[in-house]
């Protein structure tokens, strides 16, 4: 029984560490800012989730208490990672207005909201 718990904890730590490493390595390797956005915001979040699962199992095994702070941290990271990715993408679009022609058209009367205002101005 002890062995199974230790194996589970070790597996979660190792998988979490590997995903964190892959996320940061992707940030180094990919050529463009928008491609670089994919790697850390997703793989790193999953890696930290794995590390938190490991700590939950560890403290349940050692002290017989279920400590829900880890679940709260994971939930918070999963809720805020898309928001930061969207903000960084939008600021990048704002800073590089000269690349506006590479974007697809919206098929609507108005353009993308970083460049065109809605309603009257």
């Amino acid at each position, binding site marked *: 029984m002890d062995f199974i718990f230790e194996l589970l904890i070790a597996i979660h730590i190792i998988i979490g560490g590997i*995903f964190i490493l*892959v996320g940061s*390595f*992707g940030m180094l*390797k*990919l*050529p*463009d800012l*928008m*491609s670089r*956005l*994919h*790697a850390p*915001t*997703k*793989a790193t979040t*999953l890696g930290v989730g794995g590390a938190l699962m490991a700590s939950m199992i560890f403290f349940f095994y050692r002290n017989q*208490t279920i*400590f*829900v*702070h880890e*679940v*709260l941290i994971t939930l918070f990271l*999963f*809720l805020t*990672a*898309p*928001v930061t*990715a*969207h903000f960084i*993408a*939008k600021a990048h*679009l704002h800073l590089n207005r000269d690349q506006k022609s*590479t*974007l*697809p*058209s*919206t*098929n*609507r*009367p*108005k*353009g*993308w*909201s*970083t460049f*065109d*205002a*809605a309603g009257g101005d």
Partner: protein
Amino acid sequence: MTLFKRWLPHPLLAIALTVFWLLLNSRFSLGDLVLGALLGLIIPILTSNFWPQRPNVRSYRHVVIYVLMVAWDIVMANILVAKLILFRPVSQLKTRWVSLPLELKSPEAITLLAGTITLTPGTVSSDISADGQSLLIHCLDAEDAEVAVRHMKNRYEARLKEIFT
């Protein structure tokens, strides 16, 4: 305004706040419950100007199914993208911008859709058109724009349309 709507404008938010307060303290004593209920009553009233309408969720069973499906997609797609980052040379990645026409109307539904698209690896939602009917998405590796758009619409937007009327 009825009395119920005035003192409890967002009941789900009140319950969620109470539960979060209890979870943060890791204790389930009566004093904590009373304080949590008090916070759950006061905070929605104080911030009620920031959420003018309630989202009308049609069925909560679909919400649970949606959350489980998104969690499964996150794990599977992260493994795929990890393989993509490690083993494929950079010149073979076809990154492209895709424009997704929306059929959802309420802001909460559009936010959930954009968040889900960002969480599943391979796509990041970047911008929205000025009248709110079209979403700009950046794909990491998509050979065909139409296939990617249709896949995202079938999987996520159809279910969100079921949830939010």
